[in-house]
């Protein structure tokens, strides 16, 4: 289960809309119970409508800051601009961490569809996303 706030959800949607026509992306920092404390938007350094890659310097900085604050990088979000919020074969092959939450936003339809998955050894399992008011 992944828990985010409305404000965090809106920040992710805004990041992905701003990135158009490219995919948007960013990191999720939180605790290992799946509660997100911070959404960290990244530039999509792949600059592509079909691929995303988190900026490598931001990645290092975010890992270090999370560690300093007793937190963890617990996942990543990215948008699919013209397809559903479901992991693509590329997403599955490149999913680095079985403990991570892979949050996908589909901008294909309005309103934005947001879904989250665990990807373990190539197997995709959807998980519940709780959006809290605060």
């Amino acid at each position, binding site marked *: 289960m992944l828990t985010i706030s409305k404000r965090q959800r809106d920040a992710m949607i805004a990041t992905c809309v701003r990135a158009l026509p490219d995919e948007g*992306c960013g990191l999720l920092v939180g605790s290992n119970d799946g509660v997100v404390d911070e959404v960290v938007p990244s530039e999509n350094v792949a600059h592509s409508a079909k*691929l*995303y*890659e988190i900026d*490598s310097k931001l990645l*290092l900085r975010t890992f270090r800051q999370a560690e300093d604050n007793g937190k963890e990088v617990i996942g990543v979000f990215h948008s699919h601009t013209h397809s559903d919020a479901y992991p*693509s074969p590329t997403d599955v092959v490149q999913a*680095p961490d079985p403990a991570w939450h892979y949050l996908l936003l589909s901008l294909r339809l309005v309103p934005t569809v947001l879904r989250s998955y665990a990807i373990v050894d190539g197997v995709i399992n959807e998980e519940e996303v709780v959006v809290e008011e605060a």
Partner: protein
Amino acid sequence: MAITVRIPTVLRPATGGAATLLGNGATIGEVLGKISADFPALKPQLFNDDGTLHRFLNVYVNDDDVRYLGGVDAPVGPNDDVTLLPAVAGGALS
């Protein structure tokens, strides 16, 4: 002089759970080559068959991504800190 190499969680199964390793060498290629000689399961996760760094791996010397420092030829010194992180990337159905 030993160089500290920080191992991300996702690669720790290949290092027997170690979060940091000590390496030595004058370049990133030498340092990572030596630690993958100690932990052979690391090698395919660090290097391509042609000896270049794996596409889905980010390697940093201190704060700098080695892609911009010459890749495997990036110089390292005794007080440098090497960090490995998985590249975070993917994409939509084509």
